[in-house]
């Protein structure tokens, strides 16, 4: 009969409409923003920097090895290395980033920085509700904005964070056993060399042994937007001794 196909389809629509009241599989949407869909543990959007301990800037795990900067496909990470050293997550004296910026308007959330970082210093965040009122500086996240605690990391990716912590604890135990390196290292600061990177950044001239200064306000970090330009960035890269050399993974570092 002509029209029976149409009627059959209508019956299907009715079944779906009525079914949506009783069957959860037929109504999968939620009323955002009042309701949120359950968060999926593996989900990711933008990277953040993990720190241990109470002080975000002193506890950053990042040793500014430039690997992520080099591997990031759209090149949206901009790092400036310190000239002095401080103990890293496993207690070995390491440089730290004076400047660590991620341009989130360029970042494509690919997670490659997380994959290549040998120090478990950079991880993916899940915070997707972000706004900015201007196009450039507001979307250039500084290390003060990027630093999030290890507890936060545990909160958003519990399984992954637990595995990372176990690994780091093992590395720390290994490092502590043969020689108490951290204390010696902290007492013997490296001489700050007047490289172009150091001159470009006032933070680099801070006393080496002390923790980096308290997080500056958003305003004082604004000039960093200038490093979007090519010259400043290449200067930064040249200032680092061997940005191309593969940094040793955390475990090897610890055993030295």
């Amino acid at each position, binding site marked *: 009969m002509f029209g029976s196909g149409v009627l059959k389809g209508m*019956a299907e629509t009715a079944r779906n409409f009525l079914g949506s009241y009783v069957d959860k599989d037929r109504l999968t949407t939620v009323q955002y923003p009042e309701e949120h869909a359950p968060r999926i543990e*593996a989900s990711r959007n933008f990277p953040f920097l993990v720190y241990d301990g109470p002080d975000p800037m002193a506890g950053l795990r990042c040793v500014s090895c430039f690997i992520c900067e080099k591997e990031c496909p759209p090149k949206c990470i901009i790092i400036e290395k310190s000239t002095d050293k401080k103990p890293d997550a496993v207690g070995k004296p390491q440089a730290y980033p004076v400047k660590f910026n991620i341009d989130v308007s360029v970042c494509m959330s690919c997670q490659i920085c997380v994959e290549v970082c040998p120090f478990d210093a950079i991880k993916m965040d899940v915070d997707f509700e972000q706004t900015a009122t201007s196009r450039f500086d507001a979307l250039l996240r500084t290390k003060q904005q990027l630093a999030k605690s290890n507890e936060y990391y545990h909160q958003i990716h519990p399984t992954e964070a637990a595995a990372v912590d176990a690994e780091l604890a093992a590395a720390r135990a290994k490092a502590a056993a043969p020689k108490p390196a951290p204390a010696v290292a902290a007492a013997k600061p490296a001489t700050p060399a007047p490289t172009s990177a150091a001159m470009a950044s006032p933070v680099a001239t801070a006393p080496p042994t002390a923790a980096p200064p308290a997080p500056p306000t958003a305003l004082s970090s604004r000039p960093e937007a200038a490093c979007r330009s090519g010259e400043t960035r290449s200067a930064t890269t040249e200032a680092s001794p061997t940005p191309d050399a593969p940094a040793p993974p955390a475990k090897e570092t610890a055993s030295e």
Partner: protein
Amino acid sequence: MSTLTLDPIAAKASLLKKDGGQLLEVSMGPQHPSTHGVFRMDVVLDGENVVKLKPIFGYLHRNHEKIAEDETYLGSMPYTDRLDYFCSITNNWAYALAVESLAGIEVPERAQYIRVITAELTRLQNHASLVGFLMQDMGASGTPLMYAFREREKILDLFESLTGARMMCNYMRFGGCRVDLPTGWLDQAKKVVAAFPKFLDEFENLLVSNEILMARTQGVGIIPAELIVNAGITGPLLRASGVNYDLRKVDKYGIYDRFTFRVPLGDHGDVYDRYMIRILEMRESVKILEQAMRDIPEGPFTDPKTKVRNFRPKPGEAYGRIEAPKGELGFYLISDGSPNPYRYRVRPPSLINLTVLEEMCLNRNIADVVIILGSVDIVMGEVDR
């Protein structure tokens, strides 16, 4: 009349007909909801009939191939997600396949199974949404598309819990996959796949025997098998014209020789056949998925010998191709031994499938152009790259 020649369109002699009438040149797109992205068709109409059609693209050109020559091999992987953004996992696979044959990397057993499972899930969600969009183009406003998206959502949730992202998965790596299946993922996937045939039944009930749909699609946009083979068309479009060519059977890349599935073929090569082919292919994909999820072994999910960083394949060239949901997706790479490919070329199915658009649309109504384009299944991210 001299006043007529002042009109710039009428001034084109080719638009004047012998009987005194006029042809009309219409620019459909680039910002048109029926063109599936920023795509333009320059259509010359005689009344409602198409006498000439010129596809114009390039509005979404992102320089993918040239950028890839400056990226490391791994660095191009997330960019491949953005080609056909509906099927990022199959794009990853085609690229990984090319690099693996370039560098001679073996893929472990479990990774092969994971690849098949994720690729077939991709096919399910691509075809489901394509059919939804096709119905939308035909005026079945919203309902079938929303049903399709509801099912697609469940598959995207699976992708998110596996890869971290719903669409830009960036999941495959040279020699395997980025992460192993999380605990409970397989059970969840089995549930989704087991429920899928029920959705397909409903979807068929909804529209397959609908008289209006049949009137709109049967006999529309026919391409003869000979033309379609000569034009290099692949994928469901080719099979709808009755040519039995599926790379999963022809190349047996990965481990596709281990699964029993059939390749559905069309008879007429019209829009209705293309629509049915997609429904039938989804049923076959469900079969592959069931077998793969039953047989998946334990073991490593990636080749431990392959380095992520400082990856330099030896000089040479390679072409890797797979049966993506839209057709043959190939990556052609030349390595000169440096960390960046010397040449990187994509063979996108969407672009090549578009080349016969004019032949399909000639002497059809302008309204048919919309559904013919819908049945080709294009994603502009892949057409323009």
